[in-house]
């Protein structure tokens, strides 16, 4: 009996070794809750990337297996997921959380446990932390333009347009606070004056009181991080007040549904976004980025039976998996080496951007990876 058990055990071990352990990746995206919107799209992009990788035989012969648990847009749940991935599932890398608060809470954990975490949170101050403490090894990467690059880019764009006096209006939340700070930080560097500033409750249903005060200051443009519903209400009120200056809103608005919510009032509305926000037919035919994006859109339609919903977020999920694949290909099994490998990755082609990482840049973005968009014929178009 004991002999039989022994043989079985040996056979079992042999069998699993032959099949090659799958690569396990823990995903804590937010499938429910107030912030779920971005994660749901990113998850779809992630699934396409995993299909593509496994279709080609996996990473070094090992299939990728996702262990996905809903982060529910809360710090507690996200932290619980991250700890579970490390202690119970023994994963090879972690993806998410996308929301700023939870992703910041996960940072000290992954740094202490030395495990790679890649997300797409725009508000996470990863690059600022790298700049503050240059020697510290951060295990978190965040593949989105982030609030700082976005603000620098907007100021650069305004300068290029010869606009020197702007008015600022931001929501009363962490995003708005950050935006106020970074606009004030970058304005003098580009010779721009912020001549009026207002804040608003993001649950407001009417923003005319704030906008009419900004209008009285006679600015050359309005800058705001208003996005989603308040962004749409702001654009409507802006048009009601008959304002005819650029209204530069947040990157989150570069979606078809935002345009739909404007009910035709699309003039003067701008927003920064990575190249994938542009309709592919507006890119030069020989642009390699166009081919990548077109392939992604085709794969998306094939997998989900409908057109891509929000390619910027889907691209975050897709690019995240592809960057992790690169690290796994070259350094699987050693978390520190994987972390270092990504830090040295240069000109890595993704859907959203061509990523170049460094010890001071864990986003892989730079200002020249960002483009200004405006709405023409009910579609977002490049407007650099």
């Amino acid at each position, binding site marked *: 009996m004991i002999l039989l058990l022994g043989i079985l055990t040996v056979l079992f071990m042999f069998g699993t070794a032959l099949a090659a352990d799958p690569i396990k990746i823990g995903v804590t995206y937010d499938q429910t809750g107030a912030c779920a919107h971005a994660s749901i799209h990113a998850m779809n992009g992630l699934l396409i990337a995993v299909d593509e990788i496994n279709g080609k035989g996996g990473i070094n012969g090992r299939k990728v297996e996702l262990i996905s648990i809903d982060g529910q847009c809360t710090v507690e749940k996200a932290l619980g997921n991250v700890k579970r991935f490390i202690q119970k599932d023994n994963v090879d890398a972690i993806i998410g959380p996308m929301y700023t608060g939870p992703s910041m809470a996960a940072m000290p954990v992954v740094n202490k446990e030395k495990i790679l975490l890649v997300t797409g949170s725009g508000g996470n101050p990863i690059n600022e932390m790298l700049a503050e403490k240059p020697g510290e090894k951060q295990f978190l990467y965040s593949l989105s333009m982030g609030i700082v690059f976005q603000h620098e880019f907007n100021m650069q764009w305004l300068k290029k347009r010869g606009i020197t006096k702007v008015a600022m209006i931001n929501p009363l939340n962490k995003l708005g606070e950050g935006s106020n700070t970074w606009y004030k930080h970058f304005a003098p560097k580009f010779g721009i004056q912020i001549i009026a500033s207002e804040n608003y409750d993001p649950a407001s249903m009417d923003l005319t009181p704030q906008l009419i*005060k900004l209008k009285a200051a006679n600015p050359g443009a309005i800058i705001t991080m208003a996005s989603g*519903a308040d962004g749409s209400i702001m654009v409507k009120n802006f048009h009601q007040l008959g304002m005819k200056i650029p209204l530069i809103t947040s990157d989150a608005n570069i979606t078809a549904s935002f345009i739909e919510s404007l009910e035709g009032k699309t003039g003067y509305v701008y927003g920064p976004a990575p190249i994938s926000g542009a309709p592919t037919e507006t890119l030069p035919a020989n642009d390699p980025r166009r081919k990548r994006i077109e392939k992604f859109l085709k794969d998306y339609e094939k997998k989900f039976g409908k057109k891509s919903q929000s390619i910027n977020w889907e691209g975050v999920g897709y690019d995240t998996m592809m960057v992790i694949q690169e690290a796994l290909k070259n350094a699987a099994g050693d978390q520190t080496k994987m972390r270092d490998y990504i830090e040295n990755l240069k000109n890595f082609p993704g859907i959203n951007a061509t990523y170049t990482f460094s010890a001071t840049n864990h986003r892989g973005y730079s200002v020249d990876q960002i483009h200004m968009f405006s709405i023409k014929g009910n579609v977002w178009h490049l407007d650099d």
Partner: protein
Amino acid sequence: MEHLTYYTQFFFSGLTVGSIYALVGLGFALVYNVSRVLNFAQGEFVMLGGMAMIYLVKALQLPIPLAFVLSILFVAVVGFLMDLIAIRPVQKGSFLIMILITIGISAFIQGIAGLVFGREHLSFPPLFFQGKVLSLFGAVFDPQVISIIAITVLASISLKIFLARSWDGKALRACGENKITAHLLGINVPYMRTLSFALSGALGALAGIMVTPICLMFFQGGVMLGLKGICGAVIGGLNNIWGALLGGLILGLSESFGVGIISSEYKDAIAFCVLLLILFIKPEGLLGSKK
């Protein structure tokens, strides 16, 4: 001149927001008057009305009048079912239990709506005065607000007439006054409560259809509207149908003047100070009567 423009704009903005609160508050007042239940799912009725209208107009491309009637009927049925399934089995429960049940239902409806309608903020073109803007002293005003106020007043008057003249209306009021006496008089009290829920569903849907073109709608959009609607109805006096209208407008105006003159940061604080002040002076609300 600048100040005149500002104050006119604050007034218009307050009127816009206040009229929305007023229409939402009306549904609360109705259910409360009949069943003494504070229905915290009223905001969800508003959301469902808006989302159903968006779905019927945008996805199914139905003509607007048909979509309008169907949306209202749909939410009335939701109200009817809510009472039948969740409230009726515990109708002898305390005031607190009833409130907790309505809060539970509101979360349930939100969850289902998120799955069915998606999580995006959506809208549809306004029913009246599409794309028009009124201007006075340099301040601007969305004429849709006029239609919202007109509909709120119209709904209040019809409710008033219904409650005062029709047999069902009188029976509804009797239930509000005293359930046991109403029962002794041969009024079917549970049936009357079901009717009030269906009616408040219809009123909520009407509110949702009217406000969506102004402030957009999404699956959680009813929460804030519901809270502000209750707030307005309490300021005006929960047991008076006109109270919701007056209270909603006062709440909207105090918010907008607070934002304009003091600061956006104190928007809610100012609104709640107004609520507290009025409740200190007249606990039953401005138009409410003491029982």
